[in-house]
């Protein structure tokens, strides 16, 4: 029983980090209709910004965190301007964007290999990992609770931004029909920059927690494949879907690790993906494509 509760908390914690990554991924998809494979790069940029601020600037975790989130946000905007906008302005074929994003992922990864080297780096112990008792039923690490709580705060803030602000409304409108949003007097390029900033910003939150969990290295972004799977399970382009899919995935991974075997984790993850694609290809909350005509 204690193990079950513990693994559920761990699963939710991991799932909520996936959610931060998957939501940005899904947000970009909903506007531009392509899977941005450079998203993992944003996460790595966030991780290294945090690491650099802590080690080189001697900043505290709050400053380092803020620098990481903003830095990754602007890096995402820059990626869009350099690699995607020139393509967007010439063609409507999103396949080119997809390929460009794969290229940008390799570029970002290798920039870090060149500058900081490929070795694994541990972040200083800035996030407490002391054991915490959960209502006397189970013990878990403070880190898991903090990452869960942070994800809830950031996802809640995103929800508020999208539902209560003028630009949030514009993003929701653009997710349905980007062209018509432009017709309403929305500067579409600025809107896309805002979306990429938000995506990079949230990816960096996930990046910091993942670097603490697994250490930091240039290929850490590959973990985005899990967030991608979560987004597909939830339904690409749907934000609630991305969150639910991520939580399902996190739980499935941790319960498998706790009760079957840690090596079976990825097998379960990808089985879930295959089952989703077989049973409901649009995902749990996905919109059918025909609606968008």
């Amino acid at each position, binding site marked *: 029983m204690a193990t079950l509760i513990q693994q559920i908390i761990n699963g939710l914690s991991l799932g909520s980090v996936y959610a931060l990554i998957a939501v940005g991924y899904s947000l970009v998809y909903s506007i531009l209709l392509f899977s941005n494979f450079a998203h993992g790069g944003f996460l790595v940029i966030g991780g290294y910004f945090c690491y650099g601020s802590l080690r080189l600037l001697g900043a505290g975790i709050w400053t380092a965190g803020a620098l990481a989130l903003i830095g990754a946000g602007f890096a995402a905007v820059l990626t869009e301007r350099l690699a995607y906008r020139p393509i967007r302005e010439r063609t409507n074929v999103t396949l080119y964007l997809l390929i460009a994003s794969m290229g940008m992922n390799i570029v970002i990864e290798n920039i870090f290999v060149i500058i900081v080297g490929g070795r694994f780096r541990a972040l200083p112990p800035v996030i407490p990992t002391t054991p915490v008792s959960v209502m006397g039923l189970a013990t878990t690490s403070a880190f898991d609770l903090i990452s869960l709580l942070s994800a809830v705060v950031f996802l809640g803030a995103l929800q508020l931004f999208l539902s209560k602000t*003028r630009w949030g409304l*514009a993003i929701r409108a653009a997710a*349905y029909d980007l062209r*018509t949003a*432009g017709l309403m007097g929305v500067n579409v390029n600025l809107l896309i920059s805002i979306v990429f900033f938000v995506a990079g910003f949230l990816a960096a939150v996930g990046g910091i927690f993942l670097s603490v969990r697994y250490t930091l290295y240039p290929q850490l972004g590959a973990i985005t494949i899990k967030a991608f799977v979560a987004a597909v399970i939830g339904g690409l382009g749907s934000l609630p879907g991305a969150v639910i899919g991520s939580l399902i995935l996190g739980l499935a991974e941790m319960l498998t690790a706790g009760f079957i075997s840690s090596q079976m984790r990825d097998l379960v993850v990808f089985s879930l993906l295959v089952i989703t694609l077989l049973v409901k290809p649009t995902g749990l909350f996905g919109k059918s494509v025909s609606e968008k005509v």
Partner: protein
Amino acid sequence: MTTEREPLLEVKDLRVSYGAIRALSGVSLKVYEGEIVSVIGSNGAGKSTLMNAIMGMVRREAGEVRLSGSLLDSRSYRVVQQGVSLSPEGRKVFAPLTVLENLRMGAFPRGGQGSIGEDLEWVFTLFPRLKERIGQYAGTLSGGEQQMLAIGRALMSRPRVLLLDEPSLGLAPIIIKDIFKELRLINNEGVTILLVEQNARQALLLSDRGYVLQTGEMVMDGPSQELLANPEIKAAYLGAGGEKAIRSVKH
């Protein structure tokens, strides 16, 4: 006619191509303050292209578009800020947003604050049906209600010129009558209207002046009453005869 006055909206020698295909080859038109002007033409004549080119949604290859004498920007979000808005072909309401949110989107350029409440009231007086459906998702509205919403949304930016692309498309005749009656009211409130329509009779009955667009060229223009009485127009667009192109080009 009133040629000395400066037109509110002026399109001069506008050319647009899609790749090698020329969609508009030198189109000109003038809309004076307070007028309703219609552009009629059959499918593929370039009517939507004309609207989209004015809005900056497609690239203007040559020619110019002026509002009160100053050039309209080529970026559509600036065009809306300058005072021209479009109710697009096929309505294009934001289906997953509510009626209120759709109208808010129409007011986007003004920062969402200020007189938005007043404008909402104005749109609701014009289209009381929208007020009844205020919290409903736009995708669940009927075709006629969606058209009202598209027009209301375009009015929320307080445009000096309202462009309408085929407001009658896919609607029952009785609803079309309603919509055109509303357009008359909107015009009486001081909004200048430029309308493109395949439904030539309705458009000409509503408008003060009309233009006839045929394969990317204006082939005729004049007061709507005259166009309605013109035998060639009758034959080609008003269903009195077969679909026959107009040969004579008068300007």
